[in-house]
């Protein structure tokens, strides 16, 4: 198999949500000397990009995305140990979680999958994440982005508290805050001192890219 065939195979199998196939192509990639990072970015990530586009236009929905993500992670698990040092964090590092007080994490999980597929190094803090834990983790790993979501209006004030905590820790200039979730908006993001807002998982990729550039400026 050629390099192109293997990368396309990875992408197609990711879209199909076929974990056996993605694992098989991941092994083939390593066997034929394809750089592991390239296999993820030019194979799996391309597949997830197609998935993202299909979701955007209503051809795929959450169950199908989760199936594709499962297939993607089957390949990533094989490829990741072979990634050369420094490459994974080149795109950006993100601490992600659902804000303290809220447990709705479907949206957060989709954003994590999309960012993972786009090459970001992700630390997923889960849901109902204490404000201090979110901020401290960002400081600990020198995160480019803290991504926080909520579905509830009652927990929107906690998003501001995360921003305030990053300021208190003195890392707000180099750690940008991306927020999302049904009751939020760009206007709200600005009002609490967050740096950007994304309407959905697909939009998160673009916003994250801009924020990493700003964080490293």
């Amino acid at each position, binding site marked *: 198999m050629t390099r192109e065939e293997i990368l396309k195979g990875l992408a197609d199998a990711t879209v199909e949500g076929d974990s056996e196939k993605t694992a098989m192509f991941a092994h083939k990639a390593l066997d034929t000397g394809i750089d592991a990072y390239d296999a993820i970015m030019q194979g799996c990530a391309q597949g997830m990009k197609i998935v993202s586009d299909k979701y955007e236009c209503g051809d795929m929905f959450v*169950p*199908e995305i989760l199936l594709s993500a499962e297939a993607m992670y089957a390949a990533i698990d094989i490829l990741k140990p072979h990634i050369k040092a420094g490459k994974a964090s080149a795109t950006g590092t993100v601490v992600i979680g659902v804000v303290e*007080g*809220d447990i709705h994490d*479907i949206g957060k999980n989709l954003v994590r999958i999309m960012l993972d597929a786009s090459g970001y190094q992700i630390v997923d803090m889960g849901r109902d994440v204490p404000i201090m834990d979110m901020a401290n983790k960002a400081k600990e790993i020198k995160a480019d982005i803290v991504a926080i979501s909520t579905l*509830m209006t*009652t*927990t929107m004030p906690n998003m501001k508290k995360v921003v305030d905590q990053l300021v208190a820790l003195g890392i707000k200039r180099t750690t940008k805050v991306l927020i999302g979730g049904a009751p939020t908006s760009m206007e709200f993001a600005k009002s609490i001192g967050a740096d950007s807002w994304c309407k959905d998982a697909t939009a998160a990729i673009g916003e994250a890219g801009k924020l990493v550039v700003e964080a490293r400026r």
Partner: protein
Amino acid sequence: MSTLPELSFPAINADWHAHATKRFAGPFVGVNFDRVDVDPVILPYAAIQSGFGLKEFYQNPRLGMASVCWTNEMHDLLSVGHWFYSNVWMRELGCTLKYTDTLPPIVDGARPIQKPEDVDKLVPVDVSGIEKGPTFTELTSGYDFMKNGPLAGFFVPIHWGFCPTAMSAEMVGVDKFMLWTIKQPKLCHKIMDTIVDTSANAAIAIAKRYGFAMMVIGGVLANSDLLSPAKVKEYGVDYHIKLVKKAFKGGAGPQLWYHLCGNHSRDLALWKDLIMSPFTVMHVGYKGKESYPIKEIKEMWGNRATIMSNVDTKLMYRGHPKEVYEVSKQMILDGKDSPRGFVHGCACEVPAYTPSANIYAMVKAAREWGKY
């Protein structure tokens, strides 16, 4: 405060209540009373307005119901009280509920279904099991408090069935359930059958105790943001039909409030097959990110059910009274002549910390533009 919190409200004004009752009955008896009724779907907003918190609202149904009734009089809203939350009847099926200051009761800890084999052990809770369970005990403590006290006029026994799809997902974990809809559809259907049978039995238990049981159910997880139209039908619509049929056969109903929460841009037409009773309210949230246009809901459902409007809850929480008033005015003008009646409402429950001026803006619009 020495008195019990649920007793900390003065008596409801009888004249107001009598007037509001006529207004509330209007859409269901084909009479256009003085004006369009307003139902922002008041839940913990009532507790916050009354000086209590979310946790108290949900932990103490008597307080919850009393605060809703009081808030209804305060804002000139419905003549009936209600109190409910989404993860109802879940404890009876092995879930643990946690009460917090920011959310309605949530399913906490390990889910009853960890692996596919666990599904085989699932058994629906029968009527007697429901009657002995914690949810029914709490609910009836609140209902009896309303029915037998000064709030009797507000009392309607409600069976809150929530979204069978979402409840089923809570049994497993939402992500896992979503994946299983593709990988293990048989297991998903077994879980959903269990949830629906349990929920129907709960409706029957309520009807058995109080003579009838208004059913409040809706497609929350079964919506166009999360599931394909085919899956909305398979895991949403079909189970709503099954639930209502079984509950009606056991004496529940006749009132039905269908609350199609979230975005239904791709699937609304599929819900046309729902069971209808003479007292059906159809309430649709969003079309994409926007409130579902009332004109379209009226066209699809207006001749079949009382329709309810849907001010965006984000606008209620963050908007200005003028914006809420203008949006309300348009919705009322679009919906007030709906053939089977119209109620002005929010797209989902009004957020707990909504400025009260925004509720007033809804009512003011109804008074000024919703006159009959």
